[in-house]
């Protein structure tokens, strides 16, 4: 397609708005979208939110690094990883809305839920930088743990009885393998680098470690979806094996396990979040809430 000037190509869309309402609702049209008969739709809705929110929230955190990473290539890398996760989030939130059946689409779920309605694990939301309380080493420590865990999860989810989750996982596995390799190579470079980079890598791993146990704690929703959901407790040995291999190459040792922080037994999967989450949601949703339906 050719245009008389470069700006025309930005506005000459039929149904594509770049901010919201991107006409993505057909994203799932190639797969069987019926809810399996043995499955409770509300449980499947909740499970899609969990996996979708993990990706959406970490994508938001990674995007904060844009223009602030140690080098230009890393800006691009973190933004690309964020984009992959955002793509996974869109598919999962679209599926969640469709299964819920009240007409909420991906945008309604991303931009119009309050903090307590988000179902992501704490690891995705904590501040690891570039702002106060974080550091690039902390960010790669989080990315290593998160992507190792999500890759192990998605590898198994490819066999889910829900054909949509299976298709999303089949696609996501290839992307997550790149994310994990990227994070692992940074952890080795920093851990096995200078005295200063080693010190900061050790501190980064220690910072994210209290959020590891939650990843492997089975939630009631997951327990009610056998064959559809993956039991996260079954991922432990694979993820530990990966982390041990990376830490050994990086000259690091895995810290002792830290019990997951819970409020009356509840954590991220129940909508109980850390103090960082409210600020994150405010920034994520501000534009859409202030200017509903805004396009550009």
């Amino acid at each position, binding site marked *: 397609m050719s245009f008389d000037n470069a700006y025309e190509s930005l506005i000459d869309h*039929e149904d594509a708005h770049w901010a919201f309402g991107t006409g993505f609702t057909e994203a799932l049209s190639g797969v069987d979208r019926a809810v399996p008969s043995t499955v409770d739709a509300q449980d499947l809705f909740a499970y899609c939110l969990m996996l979708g929110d993990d990706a959406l929230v970490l994508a938001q955190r990674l995007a904060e690094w844009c223009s602030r990473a140690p080098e230009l290539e890393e800006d691009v890398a973190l933004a690309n990883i964020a984009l992959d996760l955002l793509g996974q989030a869109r598919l999962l939130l679209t599926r969640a809305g469709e299964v819920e059946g009240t007409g909420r689409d991906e945008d309604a779920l991303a931009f119009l839920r309050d903090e307590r309605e988000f179902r992501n694990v704490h690891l995705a939301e904590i501040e690891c930088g570039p702002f106060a309380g974080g550091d690039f080493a902390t960010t790669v420590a989080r990315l290593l743990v998160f992507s190792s865990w999500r890759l192990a999860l998605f590898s198994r989810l490819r066999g889910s009885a829900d054909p949509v989750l299976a298709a999303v996982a089949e696609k996501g596995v290839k992307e997550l393998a790149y994310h994990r390799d990227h994070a692992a190579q940074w952890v080795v470079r920093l851990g096995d680098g200078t005295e200063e980079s080693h010190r900061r890598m050790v501190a980064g791993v220690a910072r994210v470690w209290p959020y590891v146990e939650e990843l492997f704690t089975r939630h009631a929703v997951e327990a009610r979806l056998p064959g559809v959901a993956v039991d996260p407790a079954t991922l432990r040995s694979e993820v530990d094996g990966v982390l041990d291999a990376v830490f050994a190459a990086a000259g690091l040792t895995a810290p002792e396990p830290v019990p997951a922080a819970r409020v009356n037994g509840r954590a991220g999967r129940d909508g109980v979040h850390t103090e960082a989450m409210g600020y994150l949601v405010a920034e994520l949703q501000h534009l859409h809430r202030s200017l509903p339906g805004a396009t550009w």
Partner: protein
Amino acid sequence: MTALEVASSVRDPELPVLTLADLGVLRDVTERDGKVLVTITPTYSGCPALEEMGADLRRSLRSAGFADVEVRTALSPAWSTDWISEAGLRKLREVGIAPPSRIGPRAVGPVPLNLVPPASRVVCPRCGSARTTEISRFGATACKALRRCADCAEPFEHVKEL
């Protein structure tokens, strides 16, 4: 021209040297009772070009006389760089982009960890040297990495194996 011929000639918005058919994202074109149904698949889950592809397909088919066009997106089976045609690989090389290697069938089970970038078979598209190194795993688009040739010293893009 048939609807398939029109759809096959639409170019990728990010790699305009390739058609959507070359890239392997055009999965199916059917024509029934005057209605054209086109199925495409995303390269990456978050590929922002997908919507452009749909708009370009609708526009091209309409201007070729097909009034009723529907573009669908299929997630499964997931796209692989192995679906890029031989002609597509050649066209990439000709514009200075190193094409992906063929991966072949994937092993089942846990995905192996790469602690160092895997030994490269990427050849410099400008001078043909095999002495190339990765500068960045993630390039200007999600599907490309950035590399440099040790012999001619030129940086170049490489479509990553997926």
